[in-house]
């Protein structure tokens, strides 16, 4: 007897102009198994995340979250069900500080309405400071996010998503923009935190080192299709992958 | 506030002040007029006229030796600025004159009453103010919409008795609507067989009447009434003239006296022109008068235009004020009247500006004769002048004191026409 998968897609198809960004994509993501998505640029990785979160509607196919069809729902309703997302280009509130971004996220999660209580005094403030510490950005808490480095913004973007306490977190190139010396450290913290909070993650990644070390499973995208899926060990050793994906990354 | 303090002080010294009031250094008057906006076609000439007349008055020694100084308030600057300014000026001024717009009169008349400052409604036409409330401080120094429209109906019935159909094109605001209410009700009573074939109320300031004119050409009524004024009237008449609408239809234009010069040759002969009162730069009874001629000449030299009705209305307000002061000084045998004495003098006041004498009724409404004529391109001026001028006595055009205009009109019948008095002049 198998439990319903956390997220499942069936035959997702969409075209942009002449380019097929998703071609009958059927993917199953089980709770507790972190999935890395790799593939060359333009393979449809981000499009996949966009469809899963309702940002783009597929021309055919369906998305199920915890067994329920969420295809027609807008992103906010899918988020409410427990899917959070971090972006390739950080999507932050640029006039706010790092901490405020997290406080806003917590406010949204809790549905805080009291017009007379300042956001800075909400009960979730400590929790959010901890989150910031976890992503190594505590010292930037009171700085406007526009003043921060790209790497820090990426991490805060992830923290904002984590603040929602999702069950599934979709990460689009979480370590791009983070200094290469820090990448592994950040990823380790992140994966540990996700495990502790029992959040399953799906991450698009270009760094094969990170993929091999942190993913439970790897799926390879190519021209809108899932070309291969397996453990990092199996997939990364596959000659097609070495040729099409890793080769490109090195170039 | 100063006024408030002044009245308090006045009350405290009542036994004394009832006898004497010091002659002020000058008589301050506040006058609202349109310096901006579309109605500045009336407001600006009125200010020019007022300045000429006040200068002359002061050269002749003012009122009992006291010179008059007028502060002008722009009616076009919006309601807040207008009321604030009115109050600021009213705190200093002994007499206020407000205003051109009927809407502004409705705002400022109760305000003047509250502030207890004598206010002369010098140009606005709405008959509602005195019919809806009693005022102690507010007087109207000219006729009102009822008299103006009644005279227009009478002139139309007398000069074009056989018309069968009529359409109206009025500006879409209180004046356009109210004047049509009065006119159409009077017509229904006095000539019940007339058919109203079209009613158009294009927006105030509409730049184009093409669609209305096309439709009017298709309807081809015998008579078209338009109480529009200023740029709207000019545009409508010009467009109608261009497209030949004026060839077969008689236009009745109760305010066209103020557009004669601008319309030039676009107002052909044979259309009915009104003057909102008993005044006209070639007034048949006044044009040989020396003062009248002197004023017309000076006004034309100063401004380059002929004086229009708003100028004459300003003159009437000034003359009414002067007469009231002189009457109060005379009757009480004082150097300068108190406010009470002045208010008493306004009751039943008779004065004369550039038309026939005007009296103020019991309800503070002015009784002024009405002059209408028919346009003619006589060649003496580069614009239409009037012929077949008729002047109607004012009293017969107004409902009795205390009666509502529309009720009065609805109660009239054809016998009303038999008792109408008017004087005719060829031109």
């Amino acid at each position, binding site marked *: 007897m198998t439990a319903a998968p956390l997220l499942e897609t069936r035959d997702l198809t969409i075209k942009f102009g002449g380019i097929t960004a998703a071609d009958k994509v059927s993917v199953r993501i089980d709770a507790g198994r972190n999935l890395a998505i790799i593939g060359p640029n333009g393979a449809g990785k981000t499009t996949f995340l966009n469809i899963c*979160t309702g940002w783009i509607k597929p021309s055919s196919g369906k998305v199920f979250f915890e067994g329920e069809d969420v295809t027609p729902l807008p*992103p*906010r*309703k899918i988020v*409410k069900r427990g899917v959070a997302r971090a972006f390739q280009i950080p*999507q*932050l*509130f*640029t*006039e*706010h*500080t790092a901490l*405020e971004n997290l*406080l*806003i996220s917590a*406010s*949204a*999660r809790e549905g*805080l309405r*009291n*017009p*007379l*209580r*300042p*956001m*800075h005094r909400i009960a979730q403030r400590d929790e959010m400071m901890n989150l910031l510490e976890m992503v190594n950005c505590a010292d930037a808490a009171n*700085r*406007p996010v526009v003043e921060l480095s790209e790497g820090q913004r990426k991490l805060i973007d992830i923290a904002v*998503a984590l603040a*929602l306490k999702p069950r599934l977190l979709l990460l689009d190139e979480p370590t791009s923009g983070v200094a290469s010396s820090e990448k592994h450290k950040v990823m380790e913290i992140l994966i540990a935190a996700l495990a502790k909070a029992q959040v399953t993650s799906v991450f698009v990644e270009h760094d094969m080192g990170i993929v091999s070390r942190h993913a439970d499973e790897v799926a390879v995208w190519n021209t809108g299709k899932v070309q291969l899926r397996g453990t990092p060990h199996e997939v990364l050793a596959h000659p097609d992958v070495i040729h099409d994906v890793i080769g490109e990354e090195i170039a | *506030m100063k006024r*408030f303090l002044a009245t308090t002080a006045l009350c405290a010294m009542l036994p004394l002040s009832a006898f004497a009031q010091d002659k002020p250094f000058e008589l301050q008057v506040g006058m609202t007029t349109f*310096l*901006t906006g579309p109605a500045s076609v009336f407001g600006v000439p009125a200010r020019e006229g007022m300045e000429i007349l006040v200068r002359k008055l002061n050269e002749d020694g003012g009122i009992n030796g006291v010179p008059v100084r007028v502060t002008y308030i*722009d009616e076009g*600057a*919006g*309601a*807040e*600025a207008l*009321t*604030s*300014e009115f*109050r*600021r000026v009213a*705190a200093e001024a002994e007499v206020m004159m407000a205003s051109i*717009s*009927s*809407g502004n009169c*409705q*705002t400022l008349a109760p305000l003047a009453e*509250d502030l207890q400052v004598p206010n002369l409604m010098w140009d606005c036409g*709405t008959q509602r103010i005195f019919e809806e409330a009693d005022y102690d401080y507010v007087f109207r120094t000219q006729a009102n919409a009822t008299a103006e429209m009644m005279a227009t109906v009478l002139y139309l019935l007398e000069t074009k008795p056989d018309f069968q159909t009529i359409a109206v094109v009025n500006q*879409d*605001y*209180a004046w356009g*609507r109210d004047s049509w209410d009065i006119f159409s009700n009077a017509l229904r009573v006095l000539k019940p067989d007339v058919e109203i074939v079209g009613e158009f*109320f294009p*927006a*105030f300031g509409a730049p184009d009447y093409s669609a209305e004119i096309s439709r009017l050409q298709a309807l081809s009524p015998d008579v078209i009434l338009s109480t529009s004024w200023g740029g709207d009237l000019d545009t409508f008449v010009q467009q109608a003239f261009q497209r030949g609408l004026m060839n077969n239809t008689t236009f009745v234009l109760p305010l066209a006296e103020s557009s004669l010069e601008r319309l030039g040759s676009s107002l052909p002969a044979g259309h009915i022109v009104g003057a909102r009162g008993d005044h006209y730069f070639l007034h048949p009874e006044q044009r040989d008068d020396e003062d009248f001629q002197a004023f017309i000449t000076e006004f034309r030299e100063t401004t380059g235009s002929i004086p229009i009705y708003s100028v004459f209305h300003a003159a009437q307000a000034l003359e009414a004020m002067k007469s009231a002061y002189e009457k109060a000084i005379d009757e009480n045998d004082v150097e300068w009247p108190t406010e009470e004495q002045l208010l008493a003098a306004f009751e039943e006041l008779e004065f004369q500006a550039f038309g026939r004498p005007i009296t103020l009724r019991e309800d503070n409404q002015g009784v002024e004769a009405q002059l209408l004529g028919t346009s003619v391109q006589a060649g003496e001026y580069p614009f239409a002048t009037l012929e077949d001028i008729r002047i109607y006595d004012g009293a017969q055009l107004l409902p009795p004191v205390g009666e509502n205009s529309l009720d009065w009109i609805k109660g009239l019948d054809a016998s009303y026409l038999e008792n109408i008095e008017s004087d005719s002049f060829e031109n």
Partner: protein
Amino acid sequence: MSLRETWTEMSASPGLSPRTILTALAVLALVAVPLLAPQLQLLINLALAKGLAVLGVTVILRAGQVSFGHALFFGISAYAGAFLVTAMPGADLVLVLLAGALGAALSGVLVGLFVVRYRGIFFGMLNLAFSMIFWSILEKFYHYTGGADGIRLTRPSVLGQQLGRSEFELVLFYLALALVVGCGWFTLRWLASPAGQLFQTLKTNETRLEYLGLSPRRVLLSGYVLSAVLCGLGGSLMGMTQGVVTPEYVWWVRSAEMVFIAVLGGAGSVRGAFIGALIYEMVRIYASAFAADIWQLLLGVFLLIIILFAPGGIMGIFDRLIGRHRDGGTRA
């Protein structure tokens, strides 16, 4: 920027920042106006009424949106009051105010449901279109609305008492002041609260807002209704002060004027809305009194100077004077 400003304002209390002290002094000075400078009472009353409406526009500005039609709510509320007083002569002042606020809130919801789908120029234009539709209706349906001359809003009674003009104006003045202080305080708190902060994220990132599980439209609607009610309160006060309401209350130039004042005071600043309204009203009235032919020109030049040389508005100048850099607010 504006957020940190709000936050420092909040966090600085109950400590006495120069801003808090000055605000308190300003309110005290206003309380004393009817006693010390009665000739200014009416002018300030009008400015406060207008300031409330500007505060409404300011709220919307915080979400990065500009409405060129907020005079709609100003007018709806004033007309609601006028209709009420016409139907029920001697109705109470509180009732007039409530009717106005209710009218503004209802129309705010109705118009809001539609316009919150749009952003930027379209948002501004649609608001403009709605206000112009209402304006045309007011002008057109003369027999109900009095057309361009409007309708009189005769003096309502105050808690059952019929007052004379000067007493009524005194009541109105302090009512306006109380509403300004109350609404100003509430708006500041709301802006600093989670709901207000979420509202202000519309300015910077709606995508993220959607991915926080919230509907940007609904978030915008909440602030839109608040802004409509604020404009409505301003309109009710203005109508009662003037004693007459006309379609000019809704004319597009008045909406633009509100945006003008908001920017003049310091775009997005709550105090700036009122300071801007006071200064604007002074300039406008004195310009129209002493330069009747060119008052509009003077205001235009004034606006250009502010935008080109002091884009932070009067509050920006003020901050510079007391040596506080907005960006350094939280770091300090």
